[in-house]
C-alpha cells in the first residue's frame, strides 16, 4: 500500500509525525484535502501497526462516544489505552495544574488525547507535552477530529467536498460542531446556507471569521425554501441547557424537525448529517432513507482517529 502514496500524502505524513492536532485552523485547504485522501487509505488498514503503543485518554469532562471512538481506533490498530473519564478522579481535583498532569501522564504513554471543559486546554496540553497531543474537544472552542470526520463523511458520500452547497440548520449560536465545520468549509471555498431562528443565529465572532476567510454564505430562518438547492444538510441539536429561560427553549425546540416531507423536494444525492445525539431534530422515519448519513459519521470517526493516531506516531502502513 505504501508504494501508492502520492508525494503530497507522503510529505504531509512526514510533517504530521510527532505533531499535535489542536484546531482545524492548523491545516491549509490543500492539507485538508490530502489528509482526507490518507484517511481513505486507512479504511482497509486492520493490521496491528500500533502494537506496543499506548494512548493516554484524559477526559476531564465526560464524553463517552468520543472516548470510545479513540479507544476503538487505538485497539483496532493493536495499541492499548490508559486514562480517566472523570475529572473528579484525576489530580486536577486536588489542584494540580494541567501542564503538570500532562507531564506526568506523558511518561506513561506515547500519545495523548485530551477532552476538557476549558477553551484552550488542548493547546496548553500540547505546549506542556513532548509527545503528540490530540484535542478531543476544549469547551466551546474546537473539536478537530469531529470536523475531520464530518468532512470525511461528505467526501466519502459525495466523492468530493469541492463545490458542494452545504446547509446548516438548528442551533448555530452555540453548536461547536457546526462552528468548526462552517469554518473549514469556508476555507475550502464551499457555499454555505445558514438556517436558524433569530435567537440562535451564528454569533458575530464567527461571522467575522467567515468573512475574513472570504466565505460565501447566506442566512434565512426558512428551511423549506433552501432544501431543494442543497447537497448537504447538517442538522444540529438545540440544547435545553443553553437557555436561561425555559420558555425561550420551548419557543424554538421543534421549529426545525427534519422528516421525510422536509427532504422530499431535495436533490436525489442530498445527504443529511448530524453530530448526534439527536432529540427531536431528525424524525426516525428519515433513518431508512439513503439520504441519511448520520450513523456513518460515527463509523468514519474511528477511521479518522486511526489515521491521526498512526500519522502522529509516525507509523504508516
Amino acid at each position, binding site marked *: 500500500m505504501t508504494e501508492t502514496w502520492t508525494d503530497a500524502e507522503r510529505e504531509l505524513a512526514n510533517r504530521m509525525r510527532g505533531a499535535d492536532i489542536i*484546531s482545524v*485552523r492548523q491545516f491549509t485547504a490543500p492539507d485538508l484535502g490530502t489528509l482526507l485522501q490518507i484517511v481513505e487509505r486507512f479504511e482497509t488498514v486492520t493490521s496491528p501497526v500500533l502494537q506496543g503503543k499506548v494512548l493516554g485518554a484524559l477526559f476531564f469532562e465526560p464524553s463517552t462516544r468520543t472516548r470510545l471512538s479513540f479507544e476503538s481506533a487505538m485497539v483496532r490498530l493493536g495499541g492499548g489505552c490508559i486514562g480517566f473519564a472523570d475529572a473528579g478522579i484525576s489530580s486536577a481535583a486536588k489542584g494540580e*495544574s*494541567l*501542564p503538570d498532569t500532562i507531564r506526568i501522564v506523558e511518561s506513561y504513554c506515547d500519545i495523548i488525547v485530551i477532552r*476538557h*471543559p*476549558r*477553551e*484552550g*486546554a488542548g*493547546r*496548553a496540553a500540547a*505546549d506542556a507535552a513532548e509527545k503528540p497531543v490530540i484535542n478531543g474537544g*476544549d*469547551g*466551546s*472552542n*474546537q473539536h478537530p477530529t469531529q470536523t475531520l470526520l464530518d468532512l470525511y463523511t461528505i467526501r466519502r458520500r459525495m466523492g468530493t467536498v469541492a463545490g458542494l452547497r452545504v446547509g446548516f440548520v438548528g442551533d448555530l449560536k452555540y453548536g461547536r460542531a457546526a462552528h468548526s465545520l462552517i469554518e473549514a468549509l469556508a476555507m475550502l471555498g464551499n457555499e454555505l446556507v445558514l438556517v436558524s431562528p433569530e435567537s440562535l443565529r451564528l454569533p458575530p*465572532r464567527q461571522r*467575522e*471569521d467567515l468573512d475574513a476567510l472570504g466565505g460565501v454564505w447566506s442566512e434565512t430562518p426558512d428551511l423549506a425554501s433552501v432544501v431543494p438547492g442543497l447537497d448537504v444538510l447538517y442538522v444540529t441539536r438545540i440544547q435545553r441547557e443553553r437557555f436561561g429561560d425555559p420558555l425561550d427553549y420551548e419557543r424554538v425546540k421543534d421549529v426545525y424537525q427534519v422528516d421525510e416531507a422536509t427532504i422530499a423536494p431535495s436533490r436525489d444525492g442530498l445527504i443529511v448529517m448530524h453530530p448526534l445525539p439527536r432529540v427531536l431534530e431528525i424524525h426516525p422515519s428519515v433513518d431508512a432513507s439513503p439520504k441519511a448519513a448520520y450513523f456513518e459519521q460515527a463509523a468514519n470517526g474511528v477511521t479518522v482517529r486511526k489515521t491521526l493516531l498512526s500519522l502522529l506516531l509516525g507509523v504508516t502502513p
Partner: protein
Amino acid sequence: MTADRRATRQQRVASLRHGTVVDHLSPGMALKALEMLGVPSEGAALLGIHLTSEKMGRKDILKLENVEISAEQIEKLALFGPNASVVFIRDYEVVRKVQVELPDRIHGVLRCRNPSCITNHDRVPTYFDVTQRAPTMVRCAHCERRMGEHEFELL
C-alpha cells in the same frame, strides 16, 4: 548647547531632563501603556490623551521622568500603538529614538477576555498571535478568541 537651543528642546519634551517619551500611541491607549510600564518610582509621569497629530489625527503621548524603559517593554508597547516611537532623554538631549515593531506573537502581557479560557483558570501562560495590524487585532493561541486593541487587558 546655547540657552536658546536648550529652551527649544525643553519645550519639545515638556521639561523632561532625564527619562523616556513614548509618542504616537493609539488614541486612548496612554493609560494602558502607563499601567504596563508602571508609574516611575522617582519621578513624574505625564500623559497626553487625544492630542491632535498631523500623522494620526489623534494620538496619545506618555512621558516618564527618570526612567529608561527596557527593550522588552518597547516590544510590548507596540500593542498600544503600532506606529509608536520611544525617545530616550538625558540632560534634555535626545540620546536615542526607537520605532516600535509589533512582533507576530505576544507572550505574557495580555489577559484573555474569555472567562472560559484555560489561561484564566490554570497556571498556563498566555500568548497571542497578531492577526491584524493597524488597528491591532490579536487571537488567543489557547481559546482562539480575537480581541481588538480597545479590549486589551493586562495580566
